[in-house]
């Protein structure tokens, strides 16, 4: 039974690809299409141009990169707070949770959050904390807290990745989402980002990489932008270091 299904889908794959090959073959022998620059099959892959000089200059020093990141993230509608030390971060976390009146907080089970004592800070604000938790915890949480795998300076995005101890819903279901981003994890451009999350070009990506660039929003009704569609109504980014 299993093998039958296997060969049937293999036949489908072959037939599909054969059709594509035939289409490409026909075009290759068709002079006009090749002349239009679309038909030719070359081994030269599209070039990766030098990183734009202006952008490179913009993000020359790490300090500068941090400033650019904060500006772009704010432009995208996120609230960005710079924290000089883990202690300052704890203070900010307590302050935010108190202001929100948060009672249930879901944290990723992540070494960075443990190291920075984020759960303790949350409890210091009088909130119940859950670490790692499944769907029930995510749906009940007032605030979800994640550790960023990276930050992309060029777009002001925080980058979330999946893995053991992490809940995808934790950054989607709660009305407020907070990302903790160490400044050292900032990537100036996309190629740095791929190197950071994939461990090198084309090596291996986590099951899900999400670039978060602003709170959830929609402009479907008369193209009027409304903040807070199906995801978090507010996105906070606390940058440490």
């Amino acid at each position, binding site marked *: 039974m299993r093998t039958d299904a296997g060969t049937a*889908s293999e036949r*489908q*794959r072959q037939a*599909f*690809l054969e059709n*594509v*090959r035939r*289409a*490409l073959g026909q*075009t290759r022998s*068709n002079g006009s*299409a090749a002349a*239009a*620059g*679309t038909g030719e099959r070359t081994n030269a*892959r*599209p070039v990766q141009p030098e990183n*734009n000089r202006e952008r490179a200059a913009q993000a020359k020093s790490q300090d500068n990169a941090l400033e650019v990141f904060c500006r772009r993230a704010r432009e*995208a509608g996120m609230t960005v707070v710079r924290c000089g030390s883990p202690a300052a971060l704890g203070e900010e976390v307590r302050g935010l949770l108190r202001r929100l009146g948060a009672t249930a907080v879901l944290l990723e089970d992540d070494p960075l959050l443990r190291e920075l004592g984020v759960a303790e800070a949350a409890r210091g604000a009088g909130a119940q904390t859950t670490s*790692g938790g499944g*769907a029930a915890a995510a*749906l009940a949480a007032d605030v979800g807290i994640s550790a960023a795998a990276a930050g992309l300076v*060029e777009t*002001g*995005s925080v980058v979330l990745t*999946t*893995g053991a101890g*992490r*809940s*995808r819903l*934790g950054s*989607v279901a709660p009305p407020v989402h907070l990302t903790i981003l160490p400044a050292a994890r900032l990537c100036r451009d*996309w*190629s740095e980002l*791929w190197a950071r999350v*994939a461990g090198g*070009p*084309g090596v291996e*990506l986590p*099951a*899900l*990489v*999400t*670039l*978060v*660039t*602003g709170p*959830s*929003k*929609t402009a*479907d*009704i*008369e*193209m*009027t932008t*409304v903040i*807070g*569609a*199906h*995801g978090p109504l507010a996105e906070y980014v606390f940058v440490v270091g």
Partner: protein
Amino acid sequence: MITARHDVHEAIRAALANDSLQRALNTHPLERTARVRASLAQLPDAPDLRRRARQIKDYSLAHLDVLLEELAERLEERGGRVHWARDAAEAVAIVEGVAREHGCRRCIKTKSMTTEEIGLTAALQAGGVATVETDLGEFILQLAGDRPSHIITPMIHKTRQQAARLLAEKLGARHTEEPAELVRIVRKNLREVFVKADMAVVGVNFAVAETGSLVLLTNEGNGRWALARPRVLAAVMGMEKVIARLTDLAALLRLVVPSAVGSALTSYTSIVTGPRRAGEADGPEHLHLVILDNGRSAVLGGPYRELLRCVRCGACLNVCPVYRKVGGHAYGSVYPGPIGAALTPLLARGAGHTGQLRELSSLCGACLEACPVLIDIPRLLIRQRGDRGADGQGGWGFRWAMRAWGWWCGGRRRYRLAQQLLGWLLGPAARGGWVVRLPGALGAWTRCRDLPLPARHPFRELYRRMRGKR
């Protein structure tokens, strides 16, 4: 893919007579275009990027077989399953089979033009899988039994008042015309749907061959629910969405997202590489990818291949003077606007009214100027108009008339004579330089447009005079 028995002229007349539609079309596309331009102006290297984006897509198309195989292999290594669908019926059957195999009853859908193309939602519903469109605009359209009329902003043709009435009527919601309140009503309503869903169907913006990844761009967050909550995920992609590498993805994202929505990135850029892995708290246990041909291989092998570069950003709709007058429904096809006019007749193989779509363009070139991957839609439409003699839609009389017309207009003196004759013949019928109605068979031309009188002093004459003066 197309509306059955669609009468283009009837639909255009209805659109022009619809005041609220005209108001929406007069403002929203222009607002969006202004945002798009402002956002592209922030890219210091936009012209270079457009050339590079074109190159990336052309490379992908020329190597489509190799890249699709690579994509499938990588994704299957990561635990996904890949299905190959030659046409819409096969694709629908595959997704239905996925639902059956995993015993799914409640499906959430994200916005996807490809699933519109194959009519997936209706089929799943008919097969007993409760399927809910979760993009806000699509959700409201599903309540209304309506169809999207724009690639990015599906309910552009509906006013907030219409949305308010629908939500009040269908969901028993409090009547409010405040967009923020309306969004909150839908948010609340869909929460439970998200939580209870056991299957998600999503579209794919890009697929990266080297990593076996699927890329989804969303603003609302419904796509993130789809990737987080249900235990089964089915993604449907047109085969032309594959690109070679992650570095290509970066270049395309930098350009395509501003072109589509006027911001550097959408709120969420999700890159999916297989189902959930060991130790993860949530995410789909099963991931199925359906790769769809449905007429694309014929386009790939013909003179219109560059249409497959399209990334469905909708920029050409917003700038098109025809779209901004007649709206998306007038096209009677899933893909409206300039790209729809050029692509639909090819994908639908000239069925139904699609032979008329190539006429829904003023050939002004605004679509080419807005296109992030530089698809020369005007040139392709002109070529399609030229195909009319060849594809048997025009009889020998049509071909003969076109040949005669070409010969007559090919000579300067003959052309000038025709201008003078026309001016002389039409002069009495014109009001303020325009002929609004012509008698008899000629009336077909003026039924949908006015005819300007030839200039009294043509350009050649003015040019000669000005040169004489110098």
